[in-house]
């Protein structure tokens, strides 16, 4: 998934399990999306799904546990923008989320975060950590 020539830009942040982390990840994703040259709408969508990944890590993964941290990495290569968000929670099964486009799913107030990631990014990968879970979001630059 990474450009073998290595990243042009790379940053790794270790952040607390608070909602301020969500804002930090969103702002950093916006900064990288703009550096990657995406148009305003696309940059806004990338920032929004990065925010979703951070919300999942803080609320569902770490459950706002002050002893657990969120690690967010941002990498920009000539080909891709890659954003990874990892938590230290109990892990996450992405197949457990009901389809938000199903007739009953449409009126559910939650469960659209993962769907939006998949709809907006070119690649979305989930990895189980010990402990925790990692979401990798990739958008091709072209």
């Amino acid at each position: 998934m990474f450009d073998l020539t290595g990243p042009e830009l790379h940053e790794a942040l270790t952040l607390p399990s608070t909602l301020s982390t969500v804002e930090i990840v969103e702002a950093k994703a916006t900064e990288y999306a703009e550096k990657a040259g995406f148009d305003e709408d696309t940059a806004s969508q990338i920032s929004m799904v990065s925010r979703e990944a951070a919300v999942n890590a803080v609320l569902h993964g770490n459950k706002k546990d002050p002893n657990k941290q969120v690690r967010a990495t941002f990498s920009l290569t000539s080909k891709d923008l890659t954003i990874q968000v990892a938590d230290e929670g109990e892990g996450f099964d992405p197949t457990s989320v009901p389809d938000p486009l199903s007739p009953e799913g449409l009126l559910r107030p939650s469960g659209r975060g993962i769907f939006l990631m998949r709809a907006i990014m070119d690649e979305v990968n989930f990895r189980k950590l010990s402990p925790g879970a990692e979401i990798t979001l990739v958008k091709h630059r072209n």
Partner: protein
Amino acid sequence: MSMNVKIRHVGGVTVLDLSGRITLGEGSIGLRDAIRDALAAGSKKILLNVGDVNYIDSAGLGELVGAYTSVKNGGGDLKLMNLSKKVKDLLVITKLLTIFDVKENETDAIAAFA
């Protein structure tokens, strides 16, 4: 920046002018409170003007769905107007555009409330 709500009454319709961000936390709670207050005040026809909403996340979409369900369950009608391209794109992706009655402008929206 969180969400702001201004309330107007036009021809028997309660218009909520929303601006800012409808996101997890203050923004989504602000919308929920505004809908609750409008319903408690007896409003049955509620129009959400989202023209100045510049950012919305999945929690914000959830609040819009919650608003729709609350108003419908209370025997009322909820419509949206002035969707920006950004907000409309999200409603298309999530198929929520099939749920909401969306109008281009206030004149059309007010006229559409029977």
